[in-house]
């Protein structure tokens, strides 16, 4: 029975890893078909069918995992409204993995992100002639890494997850190996990413040295002991290095430098993947590490030099830079890269609030924390949908071995393809934060919580910079809706059914979350209790 329960709790992870293995074995067994001769339509057809099947299989696996997460979430709730340990108890005691409800929610977001990426990848890869079987495979593996990250309860599994995710993503960035841009972007991302990973690892080593444990909760307990430790400075340095490593992954300023270049150079679906999956997973683990290993009241959270003030600095810089640097861009991918930096700044606000809550009543404090982290999760969902949708439009606009990512390429899209334009509009409006889209509520909650926690400078900067950001998102809308196409030969995008589905789903969910945010927010908030009470 215990075995059964363990497997149950691990279902999403097993599902994705099993799916990836099956896909890999299948591809290995079938072997690679010869590239179809120019006139050989049948072979071409067969190649395309195979590509479609591959992608459909991967999407199915991710969907199954997401459904499994949802089911487990319900199961966990039924087992006990607030029992944090339900899932972690039925997972074996082995180190690392905990499938609490927080992780389940993140699983679902990651899978959704992966699905949206795969949906848009089909036509892009085909048009650019790089439709190789490794793409869905790497997406699956990277999502798996993200899931490890979401579930990691100790530094070891966290590092493994982070590296799995990163290595997968590096390869996805370099996927268009005939393109100098793609490879260059991969090199940049890889070198800087590994540098950050090394820094992260050193921080972990120091934390291990101070506490003698890799388990997050154990670290938190040791560091919060009443007696001061001589290791406190060392622990602080370790914490800072870990924060730096994670800040790199969420592309917070000043560790954001790779973001625009990597986003621009990578194939567009990969860019979407980076913006959506990598960021979500990184934020998930960031929340867990910071709030479990350096919880509220521990000297490394709210002390003058604790992570709260550190992240506050990051968040301020990130919001300002991300929003202002975007103003000058004429490459949409770059622009969205800066947008993703800016959004990281907003999301950081939520994490900061969770660490800066002041309340005499522990229960009250926990509730506020849960609200803050719930808001972060909600924002991540909103951001995932909107960003994936926006990138999907860019992916689909790719034609004839050329991607269309200049602002100019979007001119007159509303006339050429009204459906795409409408989807794009909805997603961009959500990124701006216009009601009644999901993005509006994400921002509303985060700023409201910041005001509530007395961090009004953050809220003020957030609101002001989002006004500035409206300007550059507007350029996109202007390009799509208010400019005629520059040249006549711009091909009308002919989205595949998959691509259409992706955009429609993203746009619909963005609006639906705007109209009915309550359910998702409540799920997020409840899940966060598992994290906060993690033992």
């Amino acid at each position, binding site marked *: 029975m215990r075995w059964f329960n363990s497997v149950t709790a691990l279902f999403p992870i097993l599902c994705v890893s099993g799916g*990836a293995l099956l896909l890999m074995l299948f591809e290995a067994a079938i072997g690679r078909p010869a590239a179809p001769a120019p006139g050989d339509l049948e072979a071409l057809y067969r190649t395309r069918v195979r590509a479609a099947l591959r992608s459909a299989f991967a999407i199915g696996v991710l969907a199954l995992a997401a459904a499994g997460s949802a089911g487990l979430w319900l199961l966990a709730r039924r087992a006990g409204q607030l029992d944090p340990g339900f899932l972690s108890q039925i997972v074996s005691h082995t180190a690392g*993995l905990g499938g609490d409800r927080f992780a389940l929610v993140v699983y679902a977001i990651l899978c959704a992100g992966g699905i949206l990426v795969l949906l848009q990848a089909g036509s892009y890869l085909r048009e650019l002639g790089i439709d190789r079987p490794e793409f869905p495979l790497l997406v699956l593996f990277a999502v798996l*890494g993200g899931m490890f990250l979401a579930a990691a309860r100790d530094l070891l599994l966290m590092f*493994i997850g982070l590296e*799995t995710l990163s290595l997968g993503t590096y*390869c996805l960035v370099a996927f268009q190996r005939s393109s100098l841009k793609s490879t260059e972007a991969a090199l940049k991302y890889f070198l800087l990413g590994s540098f950050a990973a090394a820094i992260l690892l050193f921080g972990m080593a120091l934390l291990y040295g101070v506490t*003698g444990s890799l388990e997050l909760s154990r670290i938190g307990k040791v560091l919060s002991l009443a007696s001061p430790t001589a290791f406190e400075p060392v622990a602080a340095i370790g914490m800072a290095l870990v924060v730096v490593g994670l800040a790199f992954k969420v592309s917070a300023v000043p560790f954001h430098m790779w973001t625009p270049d990597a986003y621009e150079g990578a194939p567009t679906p990969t860019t979407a993947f980076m913006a959506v999956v990598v960021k979500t997973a990184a934020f998930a683990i960031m929340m867990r590490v910071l709030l479990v290993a350096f919880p509220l009241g521990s000297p490394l959270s709210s002390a003058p030099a604790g992570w709260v003030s550190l992240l506050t600095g990051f968040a301020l810089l990130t919001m300002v830079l991300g929003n202002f640097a975007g103003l000058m861009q004429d490459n949409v991918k770059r622009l969205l890269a800066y947008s993703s930096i800016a959004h990281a700044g907003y999301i950081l606000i939520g994490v900061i609030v969770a660490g800066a809550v002041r309340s005499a009543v522990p229960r009250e404090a926990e509730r506020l924390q849960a609200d803050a982290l719930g808001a972060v999760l909600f924002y991540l969902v909103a951001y995932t949908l909107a960003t994936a949708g926006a990138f999907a439009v860019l992916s689909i606009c790719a034609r004839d071995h050329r991607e269309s990512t200049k602002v100019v390429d979007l001119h007159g899209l509303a006339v050429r393809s009204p459906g795409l334009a409408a989807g794009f509009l909805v997603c961009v409006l959500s990124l701006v934060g216009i009601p009644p889209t999901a993005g509006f509520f994400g921002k509303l909650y985060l700023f409201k919580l910041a005001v509530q926690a007395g961090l009004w400078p953050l809220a003020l900067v957030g609101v002001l910079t989002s006004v500035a950001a409206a300007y550059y998102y507007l350029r996109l809308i202007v390009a799509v809706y208010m400019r005629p196409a520059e040249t006549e030969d711009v091909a009308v995008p002919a989205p595949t059914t998959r691509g259409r589905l992706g955009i429609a789903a993203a746009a619909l969910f963005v609006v639906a979350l705007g109209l009915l945010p309550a359910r998702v927010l409540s799920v997020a908030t409840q899940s966060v209790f598992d994290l906060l009470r993690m033992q």
Partner: protein
Amino acid sequence: MMMNSHGCRRGALPRLGLGLGLAAACGLAWAGTVWAAEAEAPPAPGGLGALAAAEGVPVVVTATASSSPADSGASLVEQYREGGGVGRQSSRTHVVLFWFGAAAALLGAIAVIVARRPMRSALGLLVVVLATAGLYLLLRAELLAALQVLIYAGAVVVLLVFVITFLDQGAVTAPGGRRLPVRVLAVAAIVYVLYLAAHELFAMGLGSRIPPAADFGSTASVGHALFTTFVIPFEAISALLLTAIVGAVAVAKGRADGTPTTAGGALSGAGESKGTPAAGHDEGGE
């Protein structure tokens, strides 16, 4: 620093470092094995310190002053006296070997970052790897030392060397460059970091207050832990390795998707980046 040595025989330092380092590393590996076989004498059992460490509390002051003053004071002292010395007195062999290994590792590391030929950097890395393996032995991590040699030296460095030769990277790339101020600033910053970190780290204590078990670090015990406590990470890392394999294949496999081909040997010198004045000099010095 190494940037000032433009025009001098720049190859000398890395070569010297490599030579010494290689010798030191080999010596260390040998001596370490011998020493590890003898193992440390088991120290006296720990008192409060052991308890504290078992609790994972690095700081041993746990008694509060509010308890009966006279007794607790006395017992406190007793406990510290008992547990305090453990791990502090290290054998002379240990000390010698440590300095040996440390020197080798540092020299190797310097060689990695100053050598102008990637091949020499790779050799420097090899030295570091071997020296570190020796130090692992001193720290009673036998299995890790072995795997370090096997995986790191045997796989990673070899792969590096293979790629270097494959890419015709005998060519020279000099450190430093046009944007020196930024780099100098960055280096200064890093040195400052080093200073800070060392500053904080140094007085962290000299050793464990609880004795390691007799089979600490043995292959059996590490292996046992690996397949019990750490079985999930162990499974997880297989996913990581698979990712790396698939990804590396996806990225580096031959050009199947219509890459513009570049003529094989036509650009043999292209590996040089921004040919520096010192380049020719070094070639002459070989």
